[in-house]
């Protein structure tokens, strides 16, 4: 089966560039004529993940694989890791600092939204080492 691979660096030091990777992916999916609902869900879930990497982990890498029936996303960072994943998955739970909250981020909806918009979500995390999040969005 054909597959298109994309890889983006998500810079951790420049908040104004957060969201660039997901918007590039969105652009490519549109050009492919990919299922619009899947594009929307990929764009939102990946955006949330990207923002998380910038806020919490000092950036990372986003690897995206596009298959005819699904999009696989891996968001890889070497940040502090998530101490309590179950807690982090709860709506409204946030450890974001005040400065990003004032921009409208850090409402504790990132991970719950990612879960909501994806068909599969797996988090591998180790405190002090980093987090990798695997997401799958199916094209229905």
């Amino acid at each position, binding site marked *: 089966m054909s597959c298109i691979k994309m890889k983006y660096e998500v810079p951790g030091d420049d908040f104004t560039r957060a969201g660039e990777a997901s918007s590039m992916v969105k652009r490519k999916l*549109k050009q492919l004529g*990919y299922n619009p609902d899947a594009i929307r869900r990929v764009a939102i879930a990946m955006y949330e993940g990207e923002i998380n990497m910038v806020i919490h982990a000092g950036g990372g890498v986003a690897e995206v694989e596009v298959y005819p029936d699904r999009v696989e996303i891996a968001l890889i960072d070497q940040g502090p890791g998530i101490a309590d994943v179950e807690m982090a998955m709860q709506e409204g739970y946030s450890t974001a600092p005040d400065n990003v909250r004032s921009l409208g981020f850090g409402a504790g909806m990132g991970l719950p939204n990612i879960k909501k918009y994806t068909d599969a979500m797996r988090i591998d995390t180790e405190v002090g080492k980093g987090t990798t999040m695997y997401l799958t969005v199916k094209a229905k």
Partner: protein
Amino acid sequence: MERYFHSVTLDADKCCGCTNCIKRCPTEAIRVRNGKAQIISERCIDCGECIRVCPHHAKKAKSDPLSIIENKKYKIAIPAPALFGQFNNLDDIDVVLTGLKEMGFDHVFEVSRGAELVSEATRRLMAEGKLQRPVISSACPAVVRLIRVRFPDLCAHVLPMDSPMEITARLAKKEAVEKTGLPMEEIGAYFITPCAAKVTDVKEPIGSGRSWVDGAISISEIFPKLSHVMDKLEQIEPIGCSGLIGVSWAGSGGEAAALLNEKYLAADGVENIIRVLEELEDERLRELDFVELNACSGGCVGGVLTVENAYVAKARLQRLRKYLPVSCNHLEKDFLPKMMWTDELEFAPVLNLSNDLEEAMRMMEEIDRICAELPGLDCGSCGAPSCRALAEDMVRGEARKSDCIFVLREQIQDMASTLSSMGGFIPKHHTEEEP
């Protein structure tokens, strides 16, 4: 007949094949081929950016000549409110309206009147919760066309209502039928337009099968004669019937403010509106009820067929509307349903690589591969707006790699070194034997 009508056209004699327009086009609809710009018809949204940016005035907006009004027995001018901002020291709209009558129109009916009805209808529909939020204004035809080709998910958010121009033409013609007893066919409504997109919208309306407008004459064509006539008026007729809501539609933010709801966003300028549409698409602007977008900076006063600077025009309108009543037009019973579009706004996938996903994926892999081999300068010398666009054109079979001057230079260098190394292989005794 061509499949698509466009107001935006090229004067090939004036085009020198530079890269200004290809770089600015929001839908990458222009290529320079054989030294001249070419517009890819199905991609063009008639926003007029290329007209604005062309230093050689090779891009033009086609509109109807004033003489078109001779086609009908009873001629009604329907001026866009942007027209009122073109004149210095104007404090009464009726001077402009009377001037238009002097120029040969039998009647004048301002588009700001239709705009007030659109505002009221939008308020009502939003209060009833019948529209998908955030509602995106459909008044700017370039915006509607942009959404149609680039933002499939947002099509359902576009206000499915005729524009003030259409509503105005319809009301004006109905009124004229009653007043004159003439049949509808003998009555013409002529839009005095600030922009190219509206000209296209008259010829090829979106949303409803036909337009009520019989012609679109540019503000810039009418302006010299009209200002001359206005100077000589002896009597001013009380024709105008617009409030400040209607007149405010000429500038960015006017339509949104008329909804009397603070949860709105108004953006203007094509690059800005694309950024807003991207955010809307990613559902990042959930708190908004209404989004007003104008492709031209400043709103309609910034249209390419106006004569005055957009911000000067806007300042003049502020003065003009100062003592106007809030709104002079109100919906009559049962009119609202007639204002709605009959057709749904459908996504037009003209930017897609292929209708077949597997094929599109193969093409994209090829594009990525080619793109990595191009210099990445996005210089535009090949005639495409970026290296990536050239790679796309190549994969679509519309361009060659050697269209890139850097690739070509490398090829020539290779050829030159091959030639010189071949020259070095000539056996020595051969040359010695020469006489």
